[in-house]
């Protein structure tokens, strides 16, 4: 579906002209100089700086600064970019661990240790260790959304968990959240554009007081509200009339995907619950056989054998459940969040287009269609579209990979479970038939 309407672009060489000039300027981080001129020509906002200069994705850079109308071919992306950056391509390593409880007079909260190791030039040091709380992550996410309205910002774990009986500060909850936060930061680090975002850098490196003071600067609440108002206004107007076919397709896709992923999430939770209930009953089942064996002579061993088999299958069930909760459930949950994020991104793109459209409408009578303002907006739309398109393709590839590996893992999990149980029961059966032969032999003896 996403291939329609796209002309495959020329294959982009790994070491093309474009990238040479960047690399020549030293570490990727400092190659601002030569391209600033180009940026000025296109009259970009500050926000768009990161987009062309620091992008690891050559095709993106090419498109934005040299050939705005060349669409990106997915095959070229696959060739140049691994879905989860192999170690050779990474120069930024982040871990989130060591949750700690902080109790003040006003509140209790948890902080997580964020350790960053990097070889990048723009970082003053090669290693950083800071402590961050959930609020800080929320701040980072909103800054990224602000800076890159049509990029797909990775999902954050939710504030509260509605489902289940997990308490706010239970170990399970904290661990789940920690893993999700770890993933969040690493996904940003892996993102060709977001990884060079300034707020991201500050998040990773600033001390607590530095971060607080930095947070207080910036566009702030009003500007964010303005954006929201505009977004609502454009959505109220209904489907954008000049929306390119590709984005309508994306919208349709996301509507269905969102539906399906939510159902899958529910199914997965239901499976987990059923398995847990089964496990609880099985726990009681085995010991009854042991109890019975105490009243018996001849069949005591068989009964004890059954009890031990059931116990082993019980443990195997536990492992099966753990597999679900460690892999399938978190991934599906992430993609539920992703589907919301993507719907939001599509709306924001529509909103940007809406700005252009309304300007055009306003000026059409004045026969002033070639004003600079229109041009500016057109470029903005162009860049937004391209950014989204590229990120969309990247997201789809990642999603594909995630789903394949996760469900394969689920299958492997179940296979392991059944193989373990099979071995258990087969060895029991062998022991029983051996006994039978022994019994028969003893009867024939005088």
């Amino acid at each position, binding site marked *: *579906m*996403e*291939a329609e309407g796209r002309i495959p672009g020329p294959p982009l060489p790994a070491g093309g002209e474009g990238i040479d000039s960047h690399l020549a300027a030293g570490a990727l981080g400092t190659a601002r100089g030569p391209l600033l001129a180009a940026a000025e020509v296109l009259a970009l906002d500050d926000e768009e700086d990161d987009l062309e200069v620091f992008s690891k994705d050559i095709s993106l850079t090419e498109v934005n600064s040299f050939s705005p109308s060349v669409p990106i071919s997915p095959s070229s992306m696959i060739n140049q970019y691994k879905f989860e950056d192999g170690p050779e391509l990474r120069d930024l390593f982040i871990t989130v661990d060591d949750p700690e409880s902080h109790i003040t007079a006003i509140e209790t909260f948890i902080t997580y240790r964020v350790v960053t190791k990097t070889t990048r030039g723009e970082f003053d040091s090669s290693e950083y260790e800071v402590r961050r709380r959930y609020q800080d992550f929320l701040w980072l996410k909103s800054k990224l959304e602000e800076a890159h309205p049509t990029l797909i910002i990775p999902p954050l774990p939710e504030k509260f968990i509605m489902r289940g009986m997990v308490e706010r500060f239970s170990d399970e909850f904290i661990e789940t959240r920690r893993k999700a936060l770890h993933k969040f930061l690493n996904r940003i680090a892996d993102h060709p554009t977001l990884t060079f975002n300034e707020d991201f850098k500050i998040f990773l490196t600033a001390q607590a007081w530095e971060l607080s003071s930095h947070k207080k600067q910036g566009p702030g609440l009003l500007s964010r509200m303005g954006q929201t108002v505009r977004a609502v206004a454009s959505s109220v107007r209904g489907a954008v009339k000049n929306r390119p076919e590709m984005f309508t397709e994306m919208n*349709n896709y996301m509507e*269905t*995907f969102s539906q*399906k992923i939510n*159902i*899958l999430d529910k*199914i997965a939770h*239901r*499976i987990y619950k*059923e*398995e847990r*209930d*089964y496990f*609880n*009953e*099985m726990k*009681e*089942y085995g010991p*009854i*056989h042991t*109890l*019975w064996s105490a*009243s*018996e*002579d*001849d*069949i005591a061993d*068989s*009964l004890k*054998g*059954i009890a031990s*088999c059931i116990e082993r*299958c019980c443990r195997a069930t536990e492992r099966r459940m753990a597999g679900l909760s460690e892999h399938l459930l978190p991934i599906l949950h992430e993609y539920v969040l992703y589907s919301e994020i993507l719907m939001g991104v599509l709306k924001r793109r529509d909103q940007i287009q809406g700005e252009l459209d309304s300007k055009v409408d306003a000026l059409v009578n004045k026969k002033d269609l070639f004003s600079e303002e229109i041009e500016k907006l057109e470029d903005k739309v162009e860049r937004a579209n391209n950014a989204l398109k590229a990120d969309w393709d990247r997201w789809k590839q990642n999603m*594909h990979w995630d*789903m*394949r590996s996760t*469900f*394969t893992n*689920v*299958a*492997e999990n*179940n*296979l392991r*479970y*059944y*193989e373990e*149980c*099979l071995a258990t*029961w*087969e060895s*029991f*059966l062998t022991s*029983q*038939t051996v006994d039978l032969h022994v019994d*028969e032999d003893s*009867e*024939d003896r005088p």
Partner: protein
Amino acid sequence: MESTEPEPSDSRPEEEEEEEEEEEEEEEEEDDGALLAPKQRLAAMEDCLAKKMEITVSEAEKRTGRNAMNIQETYTAYLIETRAVESQSEGQCAPVESLWRRYSEFELLRNYLSVTYPHIVVPPLPEKRLSADNMDPDFVERRRIGLENFLLRVASHPVLCQDKIFYAFLMQEGGWKEMVNETGFQLKADSRLKALNATFRVKNPDKRFTELKHYSDELQSVISHLLRVRARVADRLYGVYKVHGNYGRVFSEWSAIEKEMGDGLQSAGHHMDVYAASIDDILEEEEHYADQLKEYLFYAEALRAVCRKHELMQYDLEMAAQDLTSKKQQCEELATGTVRTFSLKGMTSKLFGQETPEQREAKIKVLEEQIQEGEEQLKSKNLEGRDFVKSAWADIERFKEQKNHDLKEALISYAVMQISMCKKGIQVWTNAKECFSKM
């Protein structure tokens, strides 16, 4: 098991003679309930009805009729088919004979057998009534199998299979009920109250029966607990499998919007449907296993019945002995004129004067007669009691071996079922894994 015993003859007239001979043999070798070697017991079974005749409960049918109180009712009738087993050389199949019986007639048969052979652990009937519906086809089917099992158990029992009433139950449709009632077995039945009384008051029951009673209580309790939990486990397992069935539709709908993943999702979904459907057969097989255990749950009651009979007889014996002792004492007192024990007679004679010598003589004579009667009765009761213990214990040993054999087989079949379930699971998930990895 190989038999070195001579082949039992096929001709019927000699059958009973031979069985008697074999029973005598058994008694000579027995030593107060010592275990008969399995081979010998099997040989004893060779002459059972089960070996001479094929018995099946092949069909169940809904009927309506009028009951004893002339009220219209619906019930299920079961078709019992029998056919004599011909030897291979004849090459002909004997004709199948059949008749219809309802559950209440089975009950009547069993009651008759329990009363008539109190020393035998009489095979139990399948459950009397489900809380839900007697007409439910699954319940009827399982009852049909249970009733067939009951008949086969009785027909394989060396003693019970020879009973004429049992034979008539299989072969004679009309007038069977009257035949049973004519035996007057209901009169021989011990009242519940009497039995309960005996259980509490008996002083010296045979220890083995007391132990057996404890065992049967434990057996009943543990099997019913096991069955309850097994049912819950089965329920949960059903849930796990069935919930996977939801994958199929979602995968299919999702695959419609995917280009590369579509095929993999679609085919994986199909395998999930197969997985979800597989649980039905698995659980049905397990129901048979549960029924096998249930039979022994009900057997526990039959064991207790034999123990109760022993307690009753023993109590009866103790009462008779006590009565005899007290009469002897009375006699002695009257003869010697000494009053050793307090008695009303003694008091009244003190108050109102002694009896005349003639009166005393008369009393002594009556007592002496009673004492003699009592001693004879005591002797025969003693003999009865010992015979009962001997034959009951022989059947209990037979039962124990049957139980151990059957339960061990059942446990093995349970393992086989689990293995089959695991293998099916491995197959489905291997297929699913392939689909997922090709997504």
